[in-house]
């Protein structure tokens, strides 16, 4: 058993030291059981997926657990009746939990991963004026990776915490040399590229309190992070011995911003076979930093002796961008979830789940300038889970298969632009999102399921 934690820790360190990661899980959920329950699981989550919902839930895992799943969230987001073809978010998710004891106190180490299946991370710097589905287009095209540790110092109390990892990008491009505009093949230029992925960490922590045998409460904190993108470029040299050219560019943008969140949750076993959950998530959207690049450019191309030929128009230094503020409001997102153990047999359980989430758009109506598209979102979800115990003699424990389906509906809204000369103009926006997925979980040497009465 000692080697497994060591391997897990090694994998955590290896992955943390250079890959970009982020958090599409806020939008689409993590794990089929939890997604099917509308994400309202902070007080009832257990096992692998506690790494995201509430690290304290790791402490409820009684045996080594490995989960692996896949989901695909397809966007159908349209403006003026035209589908804007926002990319789907899809990929594997899962993780593992290694439980144990220290001084007879139950502890558990957990890793949670969401791995997109066609990219690890996408960086986009769009023009400020370009409309974009801010919450769905680029922010969710990320890898999520978190490590957590949990312990249960008292029978009624579990606490947990850990770090999620991100990586900022810094890059520098130097080009020096001589450009021959009459014989390009005789140009001599030297390139120097320096790219740096710097790890960024943000904390998460949770606590779970068993108020009674049937009522639990939880609080979770998730820290804020900003994924920066800094690029500098410097071009220096001469042009056919006629003149010299110097071009310096510095740009900085926040390509991904995850706001601070606090979750308050409760879980009530109404009957031994029926659980109802409620989560309220406070999201500090007001701190949001728009993903617009600030740009500083210096261009110096002195005219050659005798001035520029009539056929050549020298380029001019671009005017600085007048950044327009993006105002977002803090939001409280309510989530409801329920789980019913429909079948209980010694070697098989079948659970039916449902959930609902209402996320009011934090982006204020934009009647002027920029167009960050977003809408209020109603999400309903459902799912089924099968838990089979001791199916294979060589692998004692439990195998669970969960599936979920989730539909987000975004009712149409019409935005009127105040300035007639706005390049975007009035528009109608609407959409829906389908999210389907499954998770398979192996739990060895014990059962992390809710014990039947």
């Amino acid at each position: 058993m000692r080697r497994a934690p060591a391997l897990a820790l090694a994998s955590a360190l290896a992955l943390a030291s250079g890959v970009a990661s982020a958090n599409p899980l806020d939008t689409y959920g993590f794990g089929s059981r939890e997604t099917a329950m509308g994400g309202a699981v902070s007080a009832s989550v257990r096992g692998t997926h506690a790494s995201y919902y509430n690290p304290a839930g790791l402490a409820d895992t009684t045996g080594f657990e490995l989960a692996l799943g896949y989901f695909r969230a397809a966007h159908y987001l349209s403006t003026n009746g035209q589908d804007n073809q926002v990319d789907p978010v899809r990929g594997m998710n899962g993780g593992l939990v290694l439980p144990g004891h220290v001084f007879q106190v139950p502890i558990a180490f957990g890793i949670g991963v969401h791995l997109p299946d066609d990219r690890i991370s996408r960086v986009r710097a769009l023009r400020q004026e370009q409309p974009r589905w801010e919450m769905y287009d680029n922010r969710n095209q990320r890898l999520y990776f978190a490590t957590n540790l949990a312990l249960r110092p008292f029978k009624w109390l579990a606490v947990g915490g850990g770090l999620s990892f991100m990586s900022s990008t810094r890059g520098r491009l130097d080009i020096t040399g001589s450009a021959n505009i009459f014989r390009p093949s005789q140009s001599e230029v030297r390139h120097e590229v320096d790219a740096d992925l710097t790890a960024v960490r943000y904390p998460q922590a949770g606590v779970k309190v068993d108020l009674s045998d049937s009522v639990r409460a939880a609080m979770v904190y998730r820290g804020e992070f900003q994924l920066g993108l800094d690029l500098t470029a410097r071009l220096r040299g001469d042009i056919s011995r006629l003149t010299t050219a110097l071009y310096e560019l510095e740009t900085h943008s926040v390509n991904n911003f995850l706001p601070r969140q606090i979750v308050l949750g409760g879980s009530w076993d109404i009957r031994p076979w029926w659980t109802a959950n409620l989560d309220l998530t406070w999201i500090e959207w007001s701190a949001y930093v728009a993903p617009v690049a600030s740009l500083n450019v210096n261009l110096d191309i002195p005219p050659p002796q005798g001035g520029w030929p009539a056929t050549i128009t020298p380029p001019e230094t671009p005017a600085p961008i007048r950044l327009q503020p993006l105002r977002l409001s803090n939001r409280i997102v309510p989530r409801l979830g329920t789980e019913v153990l429909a079948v209980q047999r010694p070697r098989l359980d079948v659970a039916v789940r449902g959930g609902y989430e209402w996320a009011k758009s934090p982006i204020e109506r934009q009647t002027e300038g920029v167009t960050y598209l977003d809408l209020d979102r109603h999400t309903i979800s459902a799912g089924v889970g099968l838990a089979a115990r001791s199916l294979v003699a060589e692998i004692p424990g439990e195998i669970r298969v969960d599936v979920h389906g989730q539909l987000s509906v975004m009712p149409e809204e019409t935005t009127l632009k105040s300035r007639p000369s706005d390049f975007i103009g009035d528009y109608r926006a609407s959409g829906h999102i389908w999210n389907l997925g499954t998770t398979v979980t192996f739990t060895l040497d014990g059962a992390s399921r809710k014990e039947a009465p």
Partner: protein
Amino acid sequence: MTRVASRLSLVALALPVACATLGGEGVGDRDLPTTGVGPFRKLETGEVPGSAPFVLDDKLAEYRDPSAVVAPDGSVILHAVARDKAGADVIVRTRALDAVSFHGTREDSGHTPRVVLAPALPWEGPALSGPSAVLRGGETWLYYAGTGGIGLARSRDGFTFTREPAPVLAAAVPPSAWETTAPRAPSVIVLPGGELRMFYAAGTSIGEARSADGVRFERVGAAPVLAPRPSDVPLQKGEKPAFDRGAVADPFASVRITPAGRLHVRVLYTGYAAAAGASDSAIGFAARYGESGPLESNPLAVYAVGKGERGPAFVEIGRRSFVYVEQDVVTLGTDPKRRAIAAGVAPVAEVLESPRGFPAEP
């Protein structure tokens, strides 16, 4: 148990590594909302039959002042000013099936655009300018400018025109404070109720006139609907003064109903940093909601290439908008500097297919 747990840990470690692949750029930016008037990018080599970004170019004719309209068959009809063999400025008509391959441009050897209107009436003077075509009831109504104001010629076939004997909008008598020259560069739109509105240039500004029948126009209000942008606005460090602080001219108007149901009058125009006609110019966009009122202009130019671009016209075909402007042709050696008609497209991310070829007739 230890062995099983270790192996499963290795599997967990290997799966992400095995699956981490590089994806494409993705999309998410298709059919985004737009007013259809830019910003435009100039067309590139491979998107036009000849030398990009020009779509109507001839050393002798020196095409200028384009006006575009989409025909019922989907082709783009372009009227433009051209110099005839006698050296007079006349109005010609040409056509493209793909919005870029215009009959009779330099690469379409053996053809020339058809001359449809030449100066003939005393009030027109020696040169015609500012064509603006409106397709109405199966006829082509061609408004144009002469020395004494704005005239109208009508045609059933698009080639043989019958003109009104007098200007449909003559110089203001007495001249108003802003309308210090005869009206020129007309652009006419038909409102949903059937009334016609004409935007025209005069002095350094743009005015508006209305007509119920399209033949007799009366001015709307005493002030221009668009004037040069005030030049006393404080600038940020490095920010350039307004491109249209000197004069505004050459309106090209179009009307639409927005997705929210509002009437939207859109006007492209030439903005001059100094006096009208100077080389420091760019194409701007002004608009209003509703049938009447002043136009409000965007401070950013929608087409600016530093080639003395002016006289814009645009058409919308599907999700694309094409802008046609008159601008300098870069000439080498001893060739004299000349003007030709260039084209641009919006949204700027659009990439055009290869040109479809020239139509047999203009």
